[in-house]
């Protein structure tokens, strides 16, 4: 009796639910198609026109906007700055997050509150982060006074105003805001590693460092790869923080692709050209994501998608 009901309802679920499934998905699909998919298609279309966003869309220019972007030193500089941020993030921010996650992955008093504090900057808006750090780093601000007080006054320079250091300064602020997020992800990954494995390594005579190097980190691999992936995508789309602190300056030294796009599109009303930049940015993210998932994350795709 029970099986009959079960099988009937199961087959019923399979056959009748196409319509029902569609109905359940309709609101999400509609919203998604309208505000996510459609604008991306539109960006591709606008990118082929010379357009200021107001007049009729009739100045077809083919791929001229793309050619212009790919030969504009300012845009190429912006691409380069995004690349620098990606490299710095992977080389410095992620290792810091891994180190802190390893430190916090053992029971000691104060651990919960440390976790709470380290993650807090993640919930602070980039805008607020940008304003506070601009004030902290400006000449005669807290940073300069602090460095002077500990005898390192000569180290200070107005980093955000110097084309040579502005990217490093922004990277520092980015790290301040996001290291806690990666630490939390990695900490969750660490907690998924059975203690027994590490204990077994210790019993076999591995030192703590060897244990970390040869047992913990490889097992943490999937989480590290997710962290790396999110960092790359995030770094490629960097906008708020740069816009509020420097607007891409001084002399374009901290321009990113998104800042460049915003400036050309909304400040100079070159909607067609701005859309071409958006398409390039989109393609870069897409290619990076596909390549990364194809070559690096292959085996932990399931896990990766559930991390978000």
């Amino acid at each position, binding site marked *: 009796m029970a099986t009959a*009901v079960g099988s009937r309802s199961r087959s019923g*679920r399979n056959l009748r639910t*196409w319509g*029902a499934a569609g109905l*359940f*998905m309709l609101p*999400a*699909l509609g*919203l*998604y198609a*309208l*505000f*996510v998919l*459609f*604008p991306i298609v*539109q*960006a591709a279309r606008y990118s082929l026109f010379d357009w200021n*966003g107001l007049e009729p869309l009739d100045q077809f220019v083919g791929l001229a906007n793309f050619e212009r972007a790919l030969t504009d030193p300012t845009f190429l500089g912006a691409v380069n700055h995004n690349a620098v941020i990606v490299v710095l993030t992977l080389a410095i921010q992620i290792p810091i997050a891994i180190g*802190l996650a390893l*430190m916090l992955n053992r029971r000691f008093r*104060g651990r919960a509150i440390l976790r*709470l*504090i*380290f*993650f*807090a900057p993640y*919930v*602070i*808006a*980039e*805008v*607020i982060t940008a*304003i*506070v750090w601009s*004030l902290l780093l400006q000449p*005669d601000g*807290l940073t300069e*006074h602090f460095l002077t007080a500990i005898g390192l006054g000569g180290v200070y320079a107005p980093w955000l105003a110097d084309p040579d250091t502005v990217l490093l300064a922004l990277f520092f602020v980015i790290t*301040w805001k996001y290291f*806690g997020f990666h630490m*939390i*992800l990695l900490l*969750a990954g660490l907690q998924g590693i059975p203690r027994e494995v590490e204990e077994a390594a210790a019993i076999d005579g591995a030192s703590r460092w060897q244990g970390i190097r040869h047992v913990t980190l490889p097992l943490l691999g*999937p*989480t590290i790869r*997710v962290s790396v992936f999110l960092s790359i*995508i995030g770094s490629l*789309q960097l*906008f708020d923080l740069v*816009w509020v602190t420097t607007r891409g300056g001084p002399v374009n030294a901290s321009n990113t692709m998104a800042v460049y*796009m915003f400036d050309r*599109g*909304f400040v100079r009303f070159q909607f067609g050209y701005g859309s071409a930049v*958006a398409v390039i940015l*989109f393609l870069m*993210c897409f290619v990076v994501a596909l390549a990364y998932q194809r070559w690096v994350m292959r085996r932990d795709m399931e*896990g990766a*998608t559930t*991390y*978000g």
Partner: protein
Amino acid sequence: MAEPSAAREVVSVVERGAAPRPGARIRVGALAVSVLRYVVLLVVVAIVVVPVAYAVLGGFRDAPQLAADPVGLPDPWVWTNYTDSLTSASFWMQLRNSGIVAGLSTVVVVLFSALAAFVLARREFPGRELAYTVFTLGLLFPATVAILPLLILVRDLGLLDNPLGLALPEAAFGLPLTIIILRPFFRSVPKELEDAAAIDGCGSLGFFFRILLPLSRPALVTVAVLAIVSSWNQFLLPLVMLSDADNWTLPLGVTNFSTQYTTDTARILAYTTLALIPALAFYLVAERQLVGGLTAGSVKG
């Protein structure tokens, strides 16, 4: 806040380590590692806490005090920066606008995602995995990439300077992450429950609203918290969609305030602090859900 207990722990480690016992060399090594760990952690705590403390305390000073010594404590404590902002209409208006937009976008994204995640998790139909993949692809393009056509679209819909013009795109771009978090959760609800409900005459919709959603409350709270935080901090969309200052959200208001009063750092700090408080308060209340949401997959992964 962490210092006292952390310091106590160092002391207790030192006491334990100092107790004479055999194998003292290992103990000394372990002690050094422990101390080093606390030193590193405390430095990081300082780097995280000092900017926030500087903003909060700086708001209680005035421009001459800050100019004379940016490091010191308020002396005397100046309340006018905070009271001026708290009595200004614009601060409350921005707070309200941010709240309305966050509320709208959260309700939409959670409800729509839950409906979609339900069939994506518990029904079999052709094209299901394709639909899921299309949603997950959305993770790759946040609103930044589509911002120019989004403005045109929202303008054509007549939603410029309207909370819906922000809330709907925010909800749309929030769908991927929300569906990704909800699907495994919905899937883990046992089939037997649904069969039992069906026997009792409960259709799909009834099961969804009366059984699945109540059972999934932790996951729903988690995605709601994520949606609120991301809407609350959103900057680019309001920057583009809102021109009338009466409709500004807090991030816009704060940036504008900071460019308007460039010379009065203390006022900026007070306003920034006030804008920061709701987010931090919310974080303290919902930390578990927020962290749980972001790391939910890691246990399964």
